[in-house]
């Protein structure tokens, strides 16, 4: 186990380095024009551009520039997204602070949505698997097919139009000024400002999960060991919930870990439609304004979260399925 974790950690570092290097090339080096000029804005003197070039280290060779960014990936106080390199070209604020302001919002959005889609998707999947072919099953699968085919931005607008504009039941969301940090995000959630974003994000995933659970459970219920469970005289309820679900839900854990990891890196469409100042929104802003330290910061944060989610999933899997061993 220890050796496995060390190997996985080393692998994680490699992945993050590759991601960061590609991001560095794509967003810092590839765009046309002088990055120093892009950084300082329109009306500037050549002197100012030179100053910016020095301040951002853009006069140094490529590998030193990358090295400066790379040091910021070390999760250590003073190094982790350090202010000397990671500050916004737009606001000159440290990227770290910007991120920590936005993380609670994205986290509340992602985790809340995940809870909703699990609470919807798993029971619907189970129901339609055990009542296969019934009216309920058909209804559930129509729900699922709509969910997987509907673009999220469209659903989000539709929800906004209906529940905020027409019915005036729910706030349009957005986070009021003064709602800062975790307390602010939770307060906004308590006021219902996350309900529409949660539902938009959850529906598509609930549909996926319902289909996956249904498929897995139907497949599991055809296994020989289910026949054995029945031959013991167990009740059908116990056969389904103790023997069937155990096999059917294990892959769901894998999916969930990766999906939540992905969302924690920013749910940019939902955040944009509902005006939530989360990570995804920041990423889009940063890319469109050529604010490449912020782009680097967001990308690395995302890569980090996904790499950790992967690791957590793999370790959890070995606990859930005794046949899996760390090798």
């Amino acid at each position, binding site marked *: 186990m220890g050796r496995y974790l060390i190997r996985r950690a080393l692998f994680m570092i490699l992945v993050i380095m590759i991601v960061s290097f590609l991001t560095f090339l794509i967003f810092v080096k590839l765009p046309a024009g002088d990055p120093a000029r892009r950084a300082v804005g329109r009306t500037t003197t050549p002197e100012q551009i030179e100053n910016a070039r020095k301040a951002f280290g853009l006069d140094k060779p490529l590998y030193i520039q990358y090295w400066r960014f790379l040091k910021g990936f070390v999760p250590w106080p003073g190094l982790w997204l350090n202010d000397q390199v990671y500050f916004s070209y737009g606001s000159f604020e440290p990227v770290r602070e910007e991120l920590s302001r936005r993380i609670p919002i994205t986290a509340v959005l992602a985790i809340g949505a995940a809870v909703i889609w699990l609470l919807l998707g798993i029971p619907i999947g189970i129901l339609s698997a055990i009542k296969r072919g019934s009216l309920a099953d058909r209804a559930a699968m129509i729900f699922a097919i709509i969910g997987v085919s509907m673009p999220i931005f469209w659903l989000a607008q539709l929800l906004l139009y209906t529940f905020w504009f027409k019915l005036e039941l729910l706030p349009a969301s957005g986070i009021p000024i003064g709602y800062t940090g975790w307390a602010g995000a939770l307060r906004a959630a308590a006021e219902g400002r996350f309900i529409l974003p949660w539902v938009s994000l959850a529906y598509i995933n609930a549909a996926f999960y319902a289909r996956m659970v249904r498929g897995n459970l139907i497949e599991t219920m055809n296994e*020989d060991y289910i*026949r*054995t469970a029945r*031959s013991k005289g167990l*009740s059908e309820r116990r056969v389904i919930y103790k023997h069937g679900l155990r096999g059917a839900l294990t892959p769901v854990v894998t999916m969930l870990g990766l999906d939540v990891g992905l969302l924690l890196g920013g749910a940019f469409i939902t955040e944009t439609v509902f005006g939530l100042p989360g990570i995804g929104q920041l990423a889009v802003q940063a890319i469109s304004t050529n604010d490449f330290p912020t782009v680097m910061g967001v990308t690395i944060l995302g890569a980090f979260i996904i790499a950790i989610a992967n690791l957590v999933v793999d370790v959890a899997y070995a606990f859930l399925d005794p*046949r899996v061993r760390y090798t």
Partner: protein
Amino acid sequence: MAEPLLEVKDLKVHFPTDDGLVKAVDGVTYSLQPGETLGIVGESGSGKSVSSLTVMGLITPKQANISGEVFFQGQDLLKLPKDEMRTIRGAKISMIFQDPMTSLHPFYKVGFQISEAILQHQDISKKEAMDQAVEMLARVNIPRPRERADQYPHEFSGGMRQRAMIAMALSLNPDVLIADEPTTALDVTVQAQILDLIDRLKSEFNAAVIIITHDLGVVAEHCDNIMVMYGGKAAEFGNTDDIYYKPLHPYTWGLLSSIPRLDEEKQERLNPIRGLPPSLILVPPGCSFHPRCPYRFDPCDKDVPELLPVDGHHAAACHLSLADKERIRDEEVLAHR
């Protein structure tokens, strides 16, 4: 003859499918005495497994049209409500399956899986059930049973898993044990061990056993009576000697001739039964074996032969006259063995 323990009368199991009605079992009758071992032999698709799964109540009226009667201790199992059937299934009639690799739940420990069966039918504590499970593992010759009970199925070998299945099936001291191809998935050496184990436990637990197999060689030593099934029906029924030394049905002849022999001097080609098992949707008219039968004559493609007793309870379903059958058997079949 004593009151039979289990009596199956004219059992029919027909599965409605999109392609038509699959007549998996089409009128099967047999009885099982206490302490008897009955072999049910036939090819894939002859209905041997489906008939016993139906006896276990594992094929439900939802899946198939079931008719006939299955009497066990004076009750017709086919008419029992689900909940009452569950008190019999696993406790009084239990079953082991073909593939021990997939028949145990991969996520639960072996001891738990056995004790779960015990707890379902007995009002005892979890710990007592686990002790019983460990004792059962010991009785099926699993070394260090206490440790083994705490392991997962993937840590067991194939033979050990089948032993664990047997331990589970016998843990409630059932009256009938149905073994559905218990050795098909195992090595030859392990096969013999498992069959010997079933034999031994049968007398220890005083149970009657039904062994389902496609291999006449397997059942020879272990069965009292044998039913040969073909196309969802019984082709021949008799005691082991009848079936091996005085077989009366051309299908049984084919099965016996197709067993490869080690004592043959020169290498001979295997002697298969020509053709394929019949479609269970479009069952051939008359005797379902007639398209493959080298001895077919006039009535075979028109009339369905009945399973008629020849002597004692030896019976065969074939239109040939007894004299013809005995002549063909002695001259053409047994002469080659």
